[in-house]
């Protein structure tokens, strides 16, 4: 037990909590019994204040390990504290990949459930929760095994429930067969946003994975120039190097906090220019390693330090198809306000999951990294909230560090359904986080 300063990946708001590292379900149950307020934490990759709880008890899930053998149909049981990195090191050599991976392998299975993470294949495969068969969780009302058929209500409230319905102990999920550790990638460069969005609408369904990187710093005719990369796992026949070795950990790291102004409009513009020019105009059938394609950010450890002491926020929203113009409006608002943003990520979303706090909406999602500092930023993002809300869209909790409770209520119309389930398993409101306090998700 120790008092520890915790913050999210964006390193903005810090708070102090008592950090415990339970080794099993019984430890978790005991910690819940003995503490006023509790939240679980994995590898701390949520950008905001989701995995911290000032003055409360934070349960690190990193000792909740264990990986079962993989069944013939791909079923595996994994401890909540196992990272995707560890899981993939185990599964890739046997020809299995995780059905959904976010842009980093450094998330735990528990965190992947709590944030219901999505990847470049959401339009085809849905989010992480869609592949979970069963979970073991500890709630203040006791330990439970839940699935889509056994207490479906609690199961779907826990998927994307930001850890507020219980502490995830282990997860049974279905893995995806792969023949090689390569991805066959098509890359295309677009000089404007309309072009790339039209292409994604027309042809994304022919690819399992698709993502566009958009430049938010260019104005006028070149506003929103983009690079679209799409692909699928390479088969043994397609590649001449049919190997199944797992990706290695990054050797490069950022050793100290950069000065706060390092990422400013000038340096970001220069970076975007370089990055845009380095992409091929049109290239088909290139083979890339899994880690290059899925986890480019894992190549540089502690990259969040590049943003300096003040840190950064990520703004990610989803809007329905008919509101595709919101993406254009949002990027316009940013590029005209002079608020610098690193590459924005644009993707297509498939259907939502049945959970009351499901983030994806069939349509579009845009994610932006924004250094804290410009005094216009808070206001610009408040304006974007209005824009997103007007388009019946919503903001992703795992990235949020600045939304207001009123907006959450409007963006998540099934919030009361979630709170009712939470109340049932947590009548004393013991499961809380700084995010939950900020956004009124603790319950009353």
């Amino acid at each position, binding site marked *: 037990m120790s008092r520890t300063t915790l913050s999210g990946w*964006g390193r903005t708001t810090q708070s102090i909590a008592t950090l415990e590292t339970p080794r099993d379900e019984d430890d978790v149950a005991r910690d819940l019994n003995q503490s006023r307020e509790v939240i679980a934490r994995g590898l701390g990759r949520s950008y*905001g204040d989701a995995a911290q709880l000032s*003055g409360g008890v934070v349960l690190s899930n990193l000792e909740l390990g264990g990986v079962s053998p993989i069944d013939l149909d791909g079923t595996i049981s994994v401890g909540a504290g196992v990272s995707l990195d560890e899981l993939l090191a185990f599964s890739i050599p046997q020809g299995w990949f995780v059905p959904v991976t976010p842009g980093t392998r450094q998330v735990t299975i528990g965190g992947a459930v709590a944030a219901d993470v999505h990847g470049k294949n959401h339009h085809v495969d849905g989010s992480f929760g869609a592949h979970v068969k069963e979970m073991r969780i500890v709630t203040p009302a006791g330990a439970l095994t839940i699935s889509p058929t056994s207490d479906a209500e609690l199961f779907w409230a826990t998927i994307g429930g930001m850890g507020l319905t219980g502490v995830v102990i282990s997860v049974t999920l279905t893995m995806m067969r792969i023949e090689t550790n390569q991805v066959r990638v098509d890359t295309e460069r677009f000089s404007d946003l309309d072009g790339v969005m039209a292409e994604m609408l027309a042809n994304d369904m022919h690819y399992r994975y698709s993502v566009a990187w958009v430049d938010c710093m260019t104005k006028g005719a070149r506003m929103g120039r983009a690079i679209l990369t799409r692909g699928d796992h390479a088969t043994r026949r397609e590649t001449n190097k049919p190997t199944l070795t797992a990706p290695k950990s990054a050797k490069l790291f950022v050793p100290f906090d950069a000065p706060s102004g390092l990422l400013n409009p000038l340096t970001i513009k220069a970076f975007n220019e370089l990055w845009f020019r380095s992409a091929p105009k049109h290239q088909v059938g290139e083979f890339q390693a899994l880690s290059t394609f899925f986890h480019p950010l894992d190549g540089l450890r502690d990259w969040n330090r590049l943003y300096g002491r*003040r840190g950064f926020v990520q703004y990610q929203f989803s809007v329905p198809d008919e509101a595709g113009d919101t993406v254009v409006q949002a990027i316009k608002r940013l590029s005209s306000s002079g608020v610098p943003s690193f590459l924005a990520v644009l993707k297509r979303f498939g259907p939502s999951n049945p959970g009351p706090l499901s983030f994806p909406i069939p349509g579009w999602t845009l994610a932006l990294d924004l250094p804290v500092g410009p005094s216009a930023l808070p206001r610009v993002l408040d304006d974007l909230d209005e824009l997103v809300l007007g388009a019946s869209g919503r903001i992703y909790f795992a990235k949020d560090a600045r939304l207001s409770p009123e907006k959450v209520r409007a963006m998540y119309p099934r919030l009361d359904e979630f709170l009712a389930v939470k109340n049932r398993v947590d009548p004393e409101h013991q499961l809380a986080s700084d995010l939950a306090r*900020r956004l009124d998700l603790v319950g009353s």
Partner: protein
Amino acid sequence: MENAFGQPQNVVVLGGSSDIARAITKKLCAARTHTVVLAGRNQSLLDEAAAEAREYGATSTDTVLFDAEDASNAQRTVSESFEKVGGEIDLVIIAVGLLEDQFKIENDAAAVERMMMVNFTWPVVALAEIRKRLVAQGSGRILVISSVASVRVRRVMYLYAGAKAGLDRLCDGLADSLEGTGVSLQLLRPGVVRSKMTEGQKPVPFTTGVNEVAENVMKGLASGDRVIWSPPLLRYLFMVLRHLPKPVWRKIMEN
């Protein structure tokens, strides 16, 4: 909880009916603040400030009466204010202060004691209780309104500036003592501000309105800088002024 831009939700303002405090409260409420407890010595002014806070977006306001001329009530005032908020406190503003015409009071022991009490002793005693409660909470910020006058004490206002200087330096050490507790303290050093407090004073350069001060506070909360200057230019001006030889300093400041 406060958000990534240092915009708080639950706020306590000690000296909540002062003009600067009201301007800051308005800006906070327009951003994210929904619960405000205002403490001060005049109920009708507090009610006015509370109504204004609600007008700007606060959903819950309350008031606490106290008199800063008696430090024995500081602990109670803080406890009562915190309890009226109910949940976690994100920001405590200390906007307690008293400026009197020095030429009238400098030989009056009781009046001098009053100046020290309101500008120094009461805030420091209150800080002890605030510190204790916020450290237990593991998060929160304290904003102490100092003054640019505290940087180098001038003859014409040595009582006020001296008391503020004491508070300012003490808070610098107090802020260091909070490292690693999740709690932070920031100092606001405004230049001359047009307000009730400075009514009738002769105009000086770099005088601003209260809204500019509040705007600089919002920026300072986002940046987390230890000292918030208003206007920001004063920071650089005083880098020079504070090191001027005494005769030059007096020549500049007393004309």
